[in-house]
């Protein structure tokens, strides 16, 4: 976190310089200091800093050797490290970066240079950590609760079947069928949750690993549209709302993996069906506008307030007490993440009791744009 409680470890064998750097930073951060790489590693064993600022040439263990050790350990591999050095030559800088340093400041330096470098690295670390923090929140907050309910259903009805089997009376087939059906429903719900969560984790992991890299060139080729229509009809039929669905897609190559695109359509449609009444129309359209492919899903269901739209997140379900909805609340959050990943755009127009229109757009594939 970039705030006053971030901890910086200053590693420098010259005591005067070590004290000066520590003082420069102490106004904004908690400071730990070490006289060489070995002492720094000893400190890190006890207290994990948020950033390391290190000299290179030091007794016992150099900055380079310390950096190699830090990068080689799982718990410190992504720790931001800024190297300070009396060597400003290109080879030294390159060697630092090859070893995994995040930045390099040649000596002598201005206080503002050090402060700016530290601030920038901490901010970047904060941004990089966001998908992982989101995943951790999902794991620790909503997952246990959401999995427990269907799991209790499976275990509960399995227990009842055991009781039936143990009882002296002959087994009532109708009762057995009912219990088995409940187990099936709970198991299916559990499977669906696992799939949703796994997909969400996959999207977040992809987002985390591709940060700072050049975008790849995925394409959903034109044929995706017929599969998408089939998918939409299947989703609507599952909840007996096939009659309420209107779906049409214009054919085009879109710059997004087919699997992710199908997921976007599926999630938006499921939400629209879940938050609208049977008999009300749900429209799904896809069209090309200004070099982008726009997917629009519109319903006339209960809608959302502005605050609710702003608070869409992976563990947030709105008005859960009033409108009990099963699930992790992951659907829209995952769609948001996919939109971000593929440089798309997302817009939600909604008013309470007046329905919701969700528009997502992705760039067309390069060949399509020509």
């Amino acid at each position, binding site marked *: 976190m970039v705030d006053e409680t971030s901890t910086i470890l200053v590693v420098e064998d*010259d005591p*005067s*310089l070590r*004290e*000066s*750097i520590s*003082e*420069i930073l102490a*106004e904004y951060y908690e400071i730990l200091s070490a006289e*060489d790489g*070995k*002492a720094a590693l000893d400190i890190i064993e006890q207290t994990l800093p948020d950033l390391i600022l290190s*000299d290179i*040439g*030091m*007794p*016992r*263990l*150099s900055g380079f050797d310390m950096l190699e050790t830090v990068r080689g350990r799982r718990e410190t591999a992504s720790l931001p490290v800024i190297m*300070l050095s*009396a*060597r400003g030559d290109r080879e030294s800088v390159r060697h630092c970066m090859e070893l995994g340093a995040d930045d390099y400041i*040649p*000596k*002598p*330096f*201005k*206080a503002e240079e050090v402060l700016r470098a530290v601030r920038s690295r901490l901010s970047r670390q904060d941004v990089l950590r966001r998908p992982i923090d989101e995943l951790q929140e999902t794991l620790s907050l909503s997952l246990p609760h959401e999995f427990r309910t269907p799991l209790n259903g499976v275990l509960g009805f399995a227990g009842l079947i055991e009781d039936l089997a143990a009882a002296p009376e002959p087994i009532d087939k109708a009762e057995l069928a009912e219990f088995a059906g409940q187990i099936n429903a709970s198991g299916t719900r559990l499977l669906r949750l696992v799939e949703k969560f796994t997909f969400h984790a996959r999207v977040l992991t992809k987002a985390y690993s591709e940060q700072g890299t050049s975008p790849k060139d995925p394409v959903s080729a034109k044929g995706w549209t017929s599969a998408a229509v089939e998918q939409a009809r299947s989703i609507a039929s599952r909840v007996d709302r096939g009659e309420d669905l209107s779906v049409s897609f214009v054919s085009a190559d879109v710059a997004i993996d087919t699997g992710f695109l199908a997921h976007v359509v599926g999630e938006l449609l499921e939400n629209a069906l879940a938050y609208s009444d049977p008999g009300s129309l749900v429209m799904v359209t896809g069209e090309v506008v200004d070099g982008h492919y726009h997917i629009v899903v519109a319903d006339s269901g209960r809608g959302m307030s502005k605050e609710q739209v702003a608070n869409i997140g992976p563990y947030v379900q709105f008005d859960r007490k009033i409108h009990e909805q099963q699930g992790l609340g992951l659907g829209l959050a995952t769609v948001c993440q996919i939109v971000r990943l593929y440089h798309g755009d997302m817009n939600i127009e909604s008013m309470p009791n007046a329905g919701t229109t969700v528009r997502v757009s992705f760039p067309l594939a390069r060949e399509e744009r020509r």
Partner: protein
Amino acid sequence: MLTDTTAGDQRVRALSELGSGFLSLITHEIRTPLAAATSSVELMDMRGHAWTAEKRATVLARMAASLTRIDAILDDVGIAERVASGRIEIEPERLLVSQVVRDSGLAVDPAHDEKPVLLRRELIERTVSNVLSYLTPETPNPPRAVVAGSHPSQILVTIDLGSAGAAARLCTPESRSSSLQLRLAELFAALDGGSLTVERGEEATVVATINLGEIDGG
């Protein structure tokens, strides 16, 4: 005894050594104390108005220490240049190496048959100074050294740093090439046609091997 020609050849060699990479070595050595001094000045400028007199004195002392260090580096380089170019002479003396090492602050176990040798005190002092720049919390206090003559024109000084890591660090090519003290010690060895090497010994020790050259062959 050195002839003028021999002395001249050796000086040329020494000057060549001096010039090779020396400028980058000096700038490298100066950068750290310079950074300390400029940081202290900046801190004083940014926050000094709110400091107590005691705090101000601490920072000023820190600044002074850094500037003194820069001064010492420039002094060293000036002396070395003048010696190499022949403008000043530092005469070799007949010395007990173990005594010079002891005078440099180490606890010494001399060879039982140690004899005085003709060499420049600077060679020993700067060699020890280079090694002592790698002191660690594990180094015995005072650091321990053993002086031995492996044959008439070679002296070995073994110093215990107390840390195998520090000993290894000291002997990397990078450390060797970036140590002003070691380069100056090598210069003084070369002036007399001798040589100096500092290498890793057993466990936590380093061994400085001084070949005495032509001044004193036995």
